[in-house]
C-alpha cells in the first residue's frame, strides 16, 4: 500500500484520459472554467468598487469626522426656540477655543449649483464657503497655488480655490490657472488655488461620475460666502475632525455642551458621526460577498454536476476496461482512485483555466468599467478560494461515479459488450 504512489498513478492516468478525450474533457471543464472565472472576476470587480468607496470615505475624513447640522428644536422647546441664534459663525470660534480635542473645525456655507464663467465658457459647479481648516478635514491636495487662508477669511477676500473640473473646463489646455479670474453668479473671483485631480491616471472610459462630482467642488472663504450670498452669519453645517478616534465620545459631549451654551439652551442641532456610513459600507460589502458567493457557488455546483455527468458516461463507456483491470489485479480501491483522480484532474485543470480567464476578464474590466483602475487583476484571496472550491467540487462530483466504477463485478464487466 502506497497512497502517494496511488494518487500519483491515478493523476497520471487521469491526465492521460483527459488528454485522449480533449474535446469532451474541455466541454466537461467548461462549467468549472466559467464558474471560477465568474467568481474571481466578480469578486475582483466588487473589491475594486468597494475599495473606491472606502478611499472616498477616507478622503472625506473617515471615522474621525463629525458633522453638526441644524435641526428643529424639540417640541418641548418649540415655544422658546426663537431665543437661539441658530448655527452661526460664532459657533466655530466657540468650538475652536473651548475644545482642544478638535483637530480641525470649519463651517460649510453651501451655495446652490452655481454657474461659473470664464474665457467665454460656462459650466455649472458647486461652491462652498469654508475656512483654512477645511483642507485638513477633506483631503483635497492642492496642485497649484494655495488653499483659503486666515487672511482671506478675515478680509472676506474675493478669492477662490477651484476644483479640477472647473480648471479643465473653463481653461482648457491650461495646466495652471492661478491668477485667472472667474465669474460665479455675478461675482468675480481671483483663482488662488487649484485642486489636484483625484485620479492621476485617466482611464480610456474617462473619469467616473462620482469622482467628477468631487472634482466639481470649489471653495471660497466662508465669510465671503456669507456676505455675498447669505447676508447673515448663518452656516449650513459645521465639519469637525478629531485627533483620535478614542476621543469621539468625549468630543461629542463637549461639542454638545459648547453649542448648547451658544444656542442658549436650545437643542436645535444634531451631531452626526460617520459610523453609520461605515456600517452601510460594511453592510454593502457583506451583501455583495454573500450574493456573489451564492451565485458563484451555484455556477460551480452546476459545473460539478457537469463533471459528474461526464464521469458517469465515462464509467459506462469503460465498463469492459474496468473488468479487465480488475481481472489483472486491480482492487476496487484502485479503480475508485483512478476515476476520482480523473474527476479531480478535470476540475483542477478547469479551475486553472478559469483563473487564467479571470485575469483576462479583470484586465478588460479595468479598461471598460468606470473607476476600474482600482480593480486588481489578480485578487489572490478570491483566486485561492475559487481554485480550492472548484477542486473540492471536482472531488465531490467524482466520488459517486468512482464508487459505481469500483463496485462493478469483474465477471459482469468483462461480459459487457
Amino acid at each position, binding site marked *: *500500500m*502506497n497512497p502517494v*504512489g496511488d494518487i500519483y*498513478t491515478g493523476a497520471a492516468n487521469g491526465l*492521460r*484520459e483527459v488528454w*485522449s478525450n480533449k474535446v469532451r474533457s474541455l466541454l466537461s471543464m467548461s462549467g468549472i472554467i466559467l464558474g471560477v472565472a465568474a467568481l474571481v472576476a466578480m469578486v475582483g470587480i466588487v473589491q475594486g468598487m468597494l475599495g473606491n468607496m472606502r478611499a472616498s470615505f477616507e478622503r472625506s475624513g473617515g471615522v474621525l469626522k463629525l458633522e453638526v447640522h441644524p435641526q428643529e428644536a424639540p417640541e418641548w422647546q418649540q415655544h422658546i426656540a426663537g431665543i437661539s441664534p441658530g448655527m452661526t459663525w460664532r459657533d466655530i470660534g466657540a468650538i475652536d477655543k473651548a475644545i482642544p480635542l478638535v483637530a480641525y473645525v470649519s463651517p460649510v456655507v453651501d451655495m446652490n449649483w452655481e454657474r461659473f464663467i470664464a474665457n467665454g465658457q460656462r459650466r455649472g459647479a458647486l461652491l462652498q464657503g469654508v475656512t483654512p481648516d477645511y483642507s485638513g478635514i477633506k483631503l483635497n491636495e492642492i496642485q497649484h497655488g494655495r488653499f483659503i487662508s486666515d487672511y482671506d477669511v478675515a478680509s472676506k477676500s474675493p478669492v477662490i480655490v477651484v476644483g479640477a473640473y472647473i480648471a479643465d473646463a473653463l481653461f482648457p489646455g491650461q495646466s495652471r490657472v492661478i491668477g485667472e479670474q472667474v465669474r460665479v453668479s455675478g461675482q468675480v473671483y481671483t483663482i488662488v488655488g487649484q485642486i489636484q485631480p483625484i485620479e492621476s491616471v485617466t482611464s480610456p472610459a474617462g473619469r467616473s461620475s462620482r469622482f467628477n462630482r468631487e472634482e466639481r467642488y470649489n471653495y471660497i472663504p466662508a465669510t465671503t460666502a456669507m456676505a455675498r450670498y447669505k447676508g447673515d452669519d448663518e452656516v449650513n453645517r459645521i465639519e469637525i475632525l478629531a485627533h483620535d478616534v478614542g476621543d469621539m465620545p468625549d468630543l461629542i459631549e463637549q461639542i454638545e455642551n459648547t453649542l448648547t451654551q451658544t444656542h442658549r439652551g436650545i437643542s436645535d442641532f444634531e451631531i452626526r458621526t460617520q459610523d453609520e456610513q461605515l456600517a452601510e459600507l460594511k453592510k454593502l460589502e457583506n451583501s455583495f460577498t454573500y450574493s456573489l458567493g451564492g451565485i458563484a457557488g451555484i455556477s460551480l455546483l452546476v459545473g460539478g454536476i457537469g463533471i459528474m455527468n461526464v464521469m458517469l458516461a465515462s464509467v459506462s463507456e469503460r465498463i*469492459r*476496461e474496468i*473488468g*479487465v*483491470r*480488475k*481481472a*489483472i*489485479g*486491480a*482492487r*476496487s*480501491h*484502485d479503480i475508485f482512485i483512478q476515476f476520482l483522480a480523473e474527476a479531480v484532474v478535470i476540475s483542477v485543470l478547469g479551475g486553472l483555466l478559469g483563473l487564467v480567464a479571470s485575469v483576462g476578464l479583470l484586465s478588460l474590466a479595468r479598461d471598460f468599467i468606470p473607476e476600474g483602475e482600482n480593480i486588481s487583476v489578480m485578487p489572490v484571496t478570491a483566486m485561492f478560494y475559487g481554485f480550492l472550491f472548484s477542486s473540492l467540487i471536482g472531488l465531490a462530483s467524482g466520488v459517486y461515479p468512482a464508487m459505481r466504477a469500483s463496485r462493478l463485478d*469483474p*465477471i459482469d464487466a*468483462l461480459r459487457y459488450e
Partner: protein
Amino acid sequence: MIDPDLVFALRSIRRTYKVGSELVHALNGVDLTIEDREFIAVIGTSGSGKSTLMHTLGFMDSPTEGQMAFEGRDVSAISRGERSRLRATRIGFVFQSFNLLPKLTVLDNVLLPLVYGRQRVANKKELGMSVLERVGMDHRASHRPSQLSGGERQRVAIARSLINQPRLILADEPTGNLDTKNRGRIMELFASLMDEGITLALVTHDDEVAAYAKRRIRMQDGQIVEDSAL
C-alpha cells in the same frame, strides 16, 4: 490435509445462482486438483460450467459451497484485496477477445499488472520488453492495440499475463477469435510456457486446441464428466 505443492485443490465445489425464482447450479459438486506444470484443457458445451470454473479459479467468483485451496491456503479465508493481489502476482488471465486497453501502448498494456501487483521492479521497461520478446512482439512495443492483428493482440495479451511470472495462467477460449494459422502459433506458445514452470488451464470447445493439452477435463451440467491424461 491439503498438499501445499498443489496449485489448486477443489472439493465438492458448488456455485448456485438465483435467476428469478429458479436456482441455477453452474457448478454442481466439482472435485479437482491441479498440479504444478500441468497443461489442462477444459472442454464442454456452452452452459456446462467451464467459464464459472475458470472465474472461480481466478478468484473472480466464489463458490457457494465446498472447499477450495490455492497453494495450500484455504481460499475462503483470503480477503478480497488479497485475491486481487494474487491475480496481479500469481495468476495470469488470457481472454478470447484479448481485452487490451485501447488507449495504452503495447508496452504499457503489458506493464499494467505490475502497477496493481505493487512489486518493486528495478527496470520495468526492460522487463516488459523481455516479455514482449518472448512472445515475438518487441518490435511493436510502442504501437496501439488497434494497429495489431488478432494473433498479435493475443500474443501481447499473453505477454501481459506473463509479466508477473505467474504460477498459473487461465485462458478463456484464447483462440476463439483467431484463424487457423494464428491458432497454431498461440497454442505452441502456450505449450512452451509449461517448460518454464507455468501451469496452464484453458477453456475451449475446439478439440484441435484441446489436443495441445496434457490433460482433458470435460464438463457437463456443472460437473466434471471426464478427466483424462492425453
